[in-house]
């Protein structure tokens, strides 16, 4: 993975980490059948934090953030999101899902709906927002991700980078307090990675709480306030980005960084 240069000044004035806890994970364990995929995860995320989760493939980083909105079920331990505990109660799960936005590696836009309909669907059906208001809000966020002119097209007519920006806008339309990114740039051409990263940076500048699984170390260095390194289903190391990249402690982290940064 190359380290893509971020050629802009990042406005840090609103990147404030508050004392309020957004996500709290205690002693969480998860198995796929007999395979112990997440092992004793403990993590507290405060409101306004920008966390990058890195690690080799198969280390459980995607599984971890997919547990946070119950796309995956955990078997032991507790997860509290915004004060609501993730349990088997469907009402809690739906509540958390509507508060937590998620962006996927393969966008997962709905190909049978236009861009605008993709963005208004959940606000109209889940939040019961009036259609007109939902459309106005959708256009607002589409302008924010810089593709308002594509509103009436279908996802299949857009480039990968545009689709991913629509996916981000679609999540934002639900006014989430937390955004999860599951390798948002891994399926994109290099030219398009930048436009998606720019959108994510803007989001960070507005103070959004973000958890990103990504291999974009430039983003981690400049935007994140904390980098978490996972291997074999556990959190191996976490630190501020400067320390993490310049002074990694564990041997595993050093090896990983030397491989992806190509030293």
């Amino acid at each position, binding site marked *: 993975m190359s380290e893509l240069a971020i050629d802009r000044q990042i406005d840090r004035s609103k990147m404030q980490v508050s004392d309020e806890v957004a996500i709290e994970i205690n002693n969480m364990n998860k198995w796929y059948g007999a395979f112990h995929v997440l092992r004793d995860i403990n993590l507290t995320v405060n409101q306004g934090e920008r966390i990058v989760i890195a690690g080799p493939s198969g280390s459980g980083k995607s599984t971890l953030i997919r547990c946070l*909105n*119950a*796309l995956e079920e955990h078997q032991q331990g507790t997860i509290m999101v915004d004060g609501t505990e993730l349990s088997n109660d*469907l009402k809690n799960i*739906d*509540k958390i*899902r*509507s508060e*937590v*936005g*998620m962006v*996927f590696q*393969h*966008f*997962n*836009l*709905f*190909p*049978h709906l236009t861009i605008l309909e993709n963005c208004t*669907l*959940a606000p109209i*059906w*889940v939040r019961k927002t009036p259609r007109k208001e939902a459309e106005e809000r959708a256009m607002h966020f589409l302008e924010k991700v810089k593709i308002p002119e594509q509103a009436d097209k*279908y*996802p*299949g*007519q857009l480039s990968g980078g545009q689709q991913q920006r629509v996916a981000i806008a*679609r*999540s934002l339309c*639900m006014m989430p307090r937390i955004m999860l990114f599951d390798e948002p740039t891994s399926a994109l051409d290099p030219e398009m990675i930048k436009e998606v990263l720019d959108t994510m940076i803007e989001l960070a500048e507005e103070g959004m709480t973000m958890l990103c699984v990504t291999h974009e170390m430039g983003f981690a260095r400049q935007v994140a306030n904390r980098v978490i390194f996972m291997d074999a289903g556990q959190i191996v190391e976490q630190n501020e980005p400067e320390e993490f990249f310049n002074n990694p402690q564990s041997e595993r982290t050093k090896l990983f960084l030397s491989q992806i940064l190509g030293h």
Partner: protein
Amino acid sequence: MSDVSFVRTEMLPEQAPPASEVGPIGWIRHNLFSGWFNSILTLVSLYAIYYVLSGVLPWTFQSVWNADSLNQCREIMMAKWGSTHGHACWAVINDRWLQLLFGFYPSHLYWRPILALVLLLIALAPVLYSERVPTKLLILTAAYPFLLPFLMWGGTIWGPISAALGFVIGWGVYTVASKQISGLIGIILGVVASIIWWLVLSSYFVGAMDSILPIGIEAVQSRQFGGFMLAILLGVVAIGVSLPIGIVLALGRQSDLLIVKYLCVGFIEFIRGVPLITLLFVASLLLNLFLPPGTNFDIILRVMIMMTLFSAAYMAEVIRGGLAALPRGQYEGADSLGLNYWQAQRLIIMPQALKISIPGIVSTFIGIFKDTVLVSIIGLFDVIGLASAIRADTAWNGIYWELFAFIGALFFVVCFSMSRYSMYLERKLQTGHH
């Protein structure tokens, strides 16, 4: 070593393709004579087409349209062409077409099935061409299931009204119960209330209302139904009802609830494992053994139920194929936005799964529509049954081709329309690159 460095100073403009690639000549070269083997195939095919048409066209068009019997037909042919061979006797169709279309339906009431057909087309319009037809017409679509039996069988108007009331009562009970208790119990109570209404209370209601306010039209018995009308009636009901049942079965088969899942699997596998003819014999003969003596369970209704169940089992498998073709990401996308199960199914999953399944669904529709001719085996006078009946008449004894050609043409028109509509629909729902 030569110098490998190269820099293009100006970009190449677009040029017109060579003449051999475009226009009619290009088309013929590409599609008919692109090599010696393809050229031979083209010539052989052209000869085969000529051979078939040279037989069929004279038979079809050098034909007799007015005669009272097959013998008279043959006399006219001898007089005109000096041979009875190679000429159609369409006089039989001219003589009996009304019967082939309507069976023994009373001729002064023909307007009723015709009106039912016209209303069917109007009721289908907002469903089939949703973007061109005002959605208000959907009211007619909703009323049509109750209008159809009233027009076809006639009798008191309170019957269909009572049937519709059953749905209203079920819905009412559901809305009250789901607010007071819970959604699932609401559904169960609503269904139970509707069933109680239909099975127990509805007959008293119809009787009472009929004695107070007797409104109705002349009743027609089921045994008078027949002809192509019967095929359309059975086909429309089987097609219209089997699609929703098929969707429910397909979802049930994918359900996490084990009992629901295995009930659906059992139903689908049983129905698909049994020939339709067997089911029809069960409907016509065996059911009478199980029902209490004296029950009047209409034969056409029984056949409708069997054909619907048969078609629904196939439909469920076709739709399951569509569901399986959807990437997991679509479910996750819907979940991550907080849509609940039914919203996700209705708004995200089903529209796409059904779109993928369109060719299979329409094939099943066409199949079940053509299978309606099997009812002639259990003694209903559909077109095939009537063709035999017409041959039993001494005037037309021995005539085969013309009757079957006519029946074939009737079915072809309907099936071909369905097929073309499905292609139109696929094009319309295409949302990828244009």
